[in-house]
């Protein structure tokens, strides 16, 4: 299609409002060529609006969207070198599988001859492992198969960017995981840019190489999945991406001591000075270790197990800590001395490495 060294997507100060409601404000974003970027955020955060502005279904109110370095303002969807896999797939119910897949090829001008169309459509179907399903009707296909038809339909046009709008939302968990791997593999093989919209942080983290976390119409963090998880820029990211314990605290005047609600003090070494005042201490459940309280065990907090969710090799515990509220702790069975699960109503002590904690101004 269009050859350009700047084969990517770029948002330049893009805002979009519907009347008085602002969906997206002042977005600046660059997607490098061949990247797999995930737009992640809760519903209403503006991620779908961004995707639709790339697809050409919405026009920015202000600012500019560029594809391959070309400004796209005013360019209708049918003239954009991108294709989309729609939420719930939006397959044409009156066409069979092959007709769905070949739809884009049939729109091409100059026309492509019928044999070539058929060849390429079947090639695309082979690619998504649906060879031989061409004559099936859409309603005869399972959800996962429909998903792959949608993928083939979008990819058959060899777009420079593939847009995916919650593509896996309608699939069951097992199928979803399989498709995650399949999508990732496909993206690597094809080498084209994928832009994925999802509200599922696990999906975003597992598939993409760049996560763009959005909230209330703005980008709050753009980073590699690991960085987003390990170094969230604010409590929203920490909370939305993965699970986190929120502990209210106050930073003392020295800039390194935290006073917690139960009056205990916590020293946070090895960091630049914190701004004194109220703060949030964020702790991942897996950053906390858990021990049965017996004579020898000592820890930072102690509490009583109120609830346990058994996850197989590990378990998730709710622990009521006096003066500090409920804590969520994930513990592998092997971490416990006897390899057994802690039972509800058992008294436990909690420990953590202060350097693993995140501290955000409240």
């Amino acid at each position: 299609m269009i050859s350009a060294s700047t084969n990517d997507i770029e948002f330049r100060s893009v805002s979009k409002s519907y009347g008085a409601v602002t969906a997206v404000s002042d977005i600046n974003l660059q997607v490098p060529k061949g990247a797999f970027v995930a737009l992640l955020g809760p519903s209403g955060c503006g991620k779908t609006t961004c995707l639709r502005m790339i697809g050409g279904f919405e026009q920015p109110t202000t600012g500019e969207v560029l594809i391959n370095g070309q400004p796209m303002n005013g360019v209708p969807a049918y003239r954009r070198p991108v294709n989309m896999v729609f939420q719930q797939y939006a397959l044409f119910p009156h066409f069979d599988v092959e007709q769905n897949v070949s739809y884009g090829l049939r729109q091409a001008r100059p026309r492509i001859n019928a044999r070539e169309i058929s060849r390429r459509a079947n090639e695309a179907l082979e690619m998504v492992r649906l060879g031989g399903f061409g004559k099936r009707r859409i309603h005869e296909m399972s959800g996962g198969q429909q998903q792959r038809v949608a993928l083939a339909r979008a990819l058959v046009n060899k777009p420079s960017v593939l847009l995916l709008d919650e593509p896996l939302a309608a699939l069951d968990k097992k199928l979803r995981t399989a498709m995650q791997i399949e999508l990732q593999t496909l993206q690597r093989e094809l080498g084209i840019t994928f832009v994925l919209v999802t509200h599922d942080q696990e999906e975003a983290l597992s598939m993409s190489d760049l996560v763009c976390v959005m909230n209330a119409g703005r980008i709050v963090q753009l980073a590699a999945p690991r960085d987003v998880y390990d170094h969230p820029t604010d409590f929203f990211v920490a909370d939305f991406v993965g699970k986190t314990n929120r502990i209210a605290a106050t930073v003392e005047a020295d800039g390194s001591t935290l006073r917690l609600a139960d009056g205990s003090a916590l020293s946070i070494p090895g960091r630049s000075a914190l701004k004194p005042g109220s703060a949030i201490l964020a702790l991942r459940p897996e950053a906390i270790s858990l021990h049965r309280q017996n004579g020898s065990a000592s820890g930072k907090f102690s509490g009583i197990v109120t609830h346990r969710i058994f996850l197989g090799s590990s378990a998730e515990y709710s622990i009521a800590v006096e003066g500090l509220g409920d804590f969520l702790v994930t513990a592998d069975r092997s971490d416990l001395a006897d390899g057994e699960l802690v039972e509800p109503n058992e008294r436990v002590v909690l420990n953590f490495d202060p350097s693993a904690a995140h501290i955000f101004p409240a």
Partner: protein
Amino acid sequence: MALALNTKRGMVTAALVAPAVAWLFIFLVLPFIAMLVFSVGERAPEGGYQPAFTFAQFANLPARSAAFWNTLVLAPVGSLVCLVVAYPVAYYLAVRASPRYRLLLVSLVVVPFWTSLLVRTYAWMYLLGSRGIPHLLDMIGFEDVRILNTPGAVLLGIVYGYLPLMIMPIYVSLEKLDRRLLEASADLGAKPVSTFFSVTLPLSLPGVMTGLALVTILLLGEYLIPQLLGGGKVFFIGNALVDLFLQSRNWPFGSAIAVTLVVVVVFVLLIAMRIAWKIAGTRQVDLV
């Protein structure tokens, strides 16, 4: 227990369906049987019916072949013209109109039904008569334009009278149409016109077929509009029936024609359903 439940449920169903069945039986099946009986009878010397068993009435059908022919031409042509006018309206209402005003606009389509078609057709007689539209045309230089009592006036009356019946089913099917399919089409490179013919139109075909079937069937029995706006110079099956029942009182012959008309209607319906199924690729098509 399960059986008892089933029986109870069956009885409830029966109770709910019974009034409809009784209604259909009394007002559809019985009259049709009466019509069948009449159609093999003979006209009494002073008119009316006298019992007999003869197919003479059916053998006499060619005496109204012109009426059949006119009707079988008018009904599809009229409903196709209706379709051409109705589709853009339905499209506008379902796709383009602002949702704020949609309900208002849709109800405007239906409002004329609150007044009898008879009265509205009478109004058209004045509008199309020389003191109506031709008078306005005369003022801008088109002299002696005659509209009333022409086939054009009949067509206009038909389109006017049956438009809502065509608009509504098309509107419903367009409104149900998943907008993302249109976006998907555009996304795949289809220009709006191409999207319309590849996606919108095929997917609204159940509505189109419903509208066509509805209007065609009603037009097969139409007599009022040709009578009032066509000056009675064009003779349809409906007019033949009115004359046979209310004027010459040849009930058996009238019944034979009516039976034949019912057969034609059923035939038209079957063809319409066939086409709709074929296009939609499924048997889940609600036709009427």
